[in-house]
């Protein structure tokens, strides 16, 4: 492992990755990798998670293609230094901010989007000119071995590597000194990563999760809007990896009087999208492994929770499938309402007044996303200014992920740092400040021995008080 990082460091030192044409070549090769191996990717995702082709394209293959294409088209712009304006006092001077690669970076990706969560950060790291080691999650083994096999076939093996293995490999990697660590996963492991990074003062980006709420107000009273709302909630809960996604809707907040309307219409679309026979569910992923399956089943064990199930609840242990399940008002102190569900169980919490949802959300750690289905401008404003989350999406779910101009990242327990689009480039770059000065003119008052005149001069200069400076120089100001 030390050899791996030594090789990556040597490659970085040699300057290969700094060349913009090298970076573009790698990004194009990554596009080829994805285009020429689509079927293998679909198969691996089906094997690991039971993802359907459309879901795999939408959430994994398509995302990587879009990112790589976007980066290729913007790279020249991103690597260019940004000019800064310099006040007259410094004249003549030139100020700019120059992005440069951090060096050797480590990317940890998680098992729920095993292709895109490994390759999307990789795109950012390559664009910024770094050498990279990716450690994909061993809990998605087919995808891991796909990456281990195909990446060396397409990308520059001296600069971009993939390593397999489990938590022990991860631990050993964390003992080494990296120039950046990018981690997607749980807050618990996020803490371990940051603690290890602290030993080497390595900056980190932590993409974690949380309980992403969806607020629904009386838009539900409008039938056509209710339909769209329901579709988007269903699509935002069970669509991405059957709820095993950091941005999946975790729970819904709705007014008491609208709860049954909501539940009825959710049921309708669940049946339409996925079917209602546990043995024949279509277009939906399965639970990744027995551990996660058991964890989710245990959430339903609490009798008060079990009795709140109003739809679904059946499980198939052999196939690791849990049917889309809706719960109505499970006890607020139950586990299902206190830890991130990360699965196909959807609690609906009713409130007397939808405005209470703000207080409810604020009583929990800051989530990655807050979803709100409402057209009330004042309510939207309140949500924006009175809650805090990585991001907020109004009247939809999931799609903010596709918006390259929006930073994707958390706050508080949902993480820090961000990526997507140019933010990916920035997260793997150091923005170096550069100031160019000339030898003339020389300002004598800069130098000791100090006198009152010099003090006055510098005070005026600092206030950019050019008029005052002129007066001082002409002798019209007392020093």
């Amino acid at each position, binding site marked *: 492992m030390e050899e791996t990082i030594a090789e990556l460091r040597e490659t970085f030192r040699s300057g290969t990755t700094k060349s913009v044409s090298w970076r573009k070549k790698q990004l194009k090769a990554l596009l080829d990798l994805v285009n020429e191996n689509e079927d293998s990717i679909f198969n691996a995702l089906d094997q690991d998670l039971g993802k359907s082709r*459309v879901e795999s*394209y*939408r959430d994994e293959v*398509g*995302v990587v293609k879009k990112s790589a294409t976007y980066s290729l088209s913007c790279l020249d712009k991103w690597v260019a230094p940004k000019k*800064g304006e310099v006040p007259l006092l410094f004249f003549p001077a030139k*100020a700019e*901010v*120059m992005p440069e690669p951090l060096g050797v970076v480590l990317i940890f990706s998680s098992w729920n989007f095993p292709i895109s969560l490994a390759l999307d950060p990789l795109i950012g790291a390559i664009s910024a000119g770094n050498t990279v080691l990716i450690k994909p999650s061993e809990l998605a083994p087919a995808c891991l071995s796909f990456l281990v096999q195909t990446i060396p076939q397409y990308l520059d093996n001296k600069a971009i590597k993939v390593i397999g293995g489990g938590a022990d490999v991860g631990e050993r990697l964390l003992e080494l000194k990296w*120039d950046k660590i990018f981690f997607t996963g749980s807050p618990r492991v996020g*803490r371990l*990563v*940051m*603690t290890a990074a*602290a030993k080497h*003062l390595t*900056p980190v980006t932590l993409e974690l999760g949380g309980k992403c709420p969806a607020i629904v107000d009386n838009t539900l009273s409008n039938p056509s809007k209710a339909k*769209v709302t329901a*579709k*988007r909630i269903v*699509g935002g809960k069970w*669509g991405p990896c059957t709820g095993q996604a950091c941005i999946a809707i975790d729970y819904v907040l709705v007014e008491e009087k609208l709860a049954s309307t909501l539940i009825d219409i959710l049921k309708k*679309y669940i049946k339409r*999208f996925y079917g209602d026979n546990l043995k024949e569910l279509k277009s*939906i992923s399965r639970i990744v492994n027995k551990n996660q399956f058991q964890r989710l089943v245990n959430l339903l064990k609490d009798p008060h929770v079990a009795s709140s199930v109003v739809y679904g609840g059946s499980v198939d242990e052999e196939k690791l499938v849990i049917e889309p399940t809706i719960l109505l008002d499970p006890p607020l102190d139950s586990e299902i309402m206190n830890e991130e569900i990360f699965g196909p169980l959807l609690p609906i919490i009713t409130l007397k007044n939808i405005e209470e949802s703000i207080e409810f959300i604020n009583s929990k750690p800051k989530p990655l996303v807050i979803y709100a289905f409402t057209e009330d401008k004042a309510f939207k404003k309140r949500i924006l*200014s009175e809650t*805090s*989350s*990585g*991001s*907020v999406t109004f*009247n*939809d779910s999931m*799609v*903010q992920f*596709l*918006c390259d*101009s*929006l*930073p*994707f990242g958390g*706050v508080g*327990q949902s993480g820090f740092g961000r990526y997507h689009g140019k933010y990916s480039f920035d997260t793997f770059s*150091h*923005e*170096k400040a*550069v*100031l*160019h*000065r000339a*030898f*003339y003119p020389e300002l004598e008052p800069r*130098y*000791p021995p*100090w006198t009152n005149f*010099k*003090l006055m001069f*510098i005070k005026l200069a*600092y*206030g950019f008080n050019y008029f005052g400076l002129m007066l001082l120089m002409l002798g019209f100001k007392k020093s």
Partner: protein
Amino acid sequence: MGSQPEDKAVFDTESGKEMVKELRASFVAGKTKSYEWKVSQLKAMLKMMEENEAQIIFALRDDLSKPELESSIYEIGMLKNSCRLALKEMKHWMKPEKAKTSLTTFPSTAEIVSEPLGVVLVISAWNYPFLLSLDPVVGAIAAGNAIVLKPSELAPATSSLLAKLIADYLDGSCIKVVEGAVPETTALLEQKWDKIFYTGNGRVARIVMAAAAKHLTPVVLELGGKSPVIVDSDIDLKVATRRIIAGKWGCNNGQACISPDYIITTKDYAVKLVDSFKCELEKFYGKNPLESKDLSRIVNSNHFDRLLKLLDEDKISSKIVHGGERDETNLKIAPTILLDVPKNSLIMKEEIFGPLLPIIMVDKLEGSFDVIKSLGGKPLAAYLFTNKTKLKAKFVAEVSAGGLVVNDTTVHLAEHNLPFGGVGDSGMGSYHGKFSFDAFSHKKAVLYRSFGGDSSLRYPPYTRGKLRLLQALLSGSVLRIIRALLGC
């Protein structure tokens, strides 16, 4: 029983918890988010400086024998500028930034909203104890946070002055000062903050970051390093020398994170450079620099001993070509220049942070880049004096540091359009100007969608046609989308 003077209460974990609780309540109540509150605090800070300039200068003289001009300009003047800039630009900084949306999410609008992180901890250093305490605080206020400031105990006069002035001038329910040393800092670090801003050294920075990791608290670490100065021979030697002196001994007598640490120049030029230094140093500080009022002293005997150790190392003292005088009683060391010290000496291994300036010689100036890289670690700043365009370009492209300056030293600190921060061992994160506001903000992405324009292709059951349409949509290509819609 007669009344006894109360011992100053010990600040422990419980006190830390209570303090954070109180500040969080103030934050949740929305006090710090209001524009008016922010303006009132920044104006109060300006008033505080105006009405107490003499006391501040006095405290800095007490702690560091800092010359009045350095205190007035580098500590007070710079902070005033920060406040004024924030007051002027804050409204603009607080405005949401529009973000472009693409065909893929049509119809939608997007923006990025800045919001305060919450309750933040600022830990500052002893060398610019006034500025480095309050400059980050300006950013934290502008961004709308509640704040605890922990000034350095190694500058005790300034620390207690800050505690008093902040209590007198700023809103005590939202901004607090905790004085103390390791036990108090430890108690603070055990709490859950929304951000920790630390200025200091790498050893303590590791402790800060590890403590932050327990709560997943993001950090800004402003550290230091060995800031090199490459000096070419085709320059105006007098101007270059003066600027290096101003950046080295003119900045707290070399005890500054961006002070030139060492010089690299060619063998042929070294002697000329040393002579120029001797000449200008005498002009600035006189024949007896130990008696000059324009030089700070060494902060305490620990650092004094540390610096002497660097000088007295075997084979090093013979390399001194200028200076070397010391006054232990007053903790003063004269500007000292060393020529041709071995690269593995102590003085070349750690950040000097004092008035000793080693000069390393190379055959050709291009070799200086390798010297810098061989010392390992990326410094906070790097400087180059030359008129050669190619050398400038190579310098900017190849030397990695927090910030670079060509043909001057340290002045980039005052340029608020440039981010000020380190990379690698010199730190992470940056501040100054808008970067301060950003350092203490969360940039929340917001996407507005409407109910119209809902396409069934997003939803199962999934079909081949939907797959093709999805592929087209993700590619953003209008032509593909039309073709997919038409089914061809």
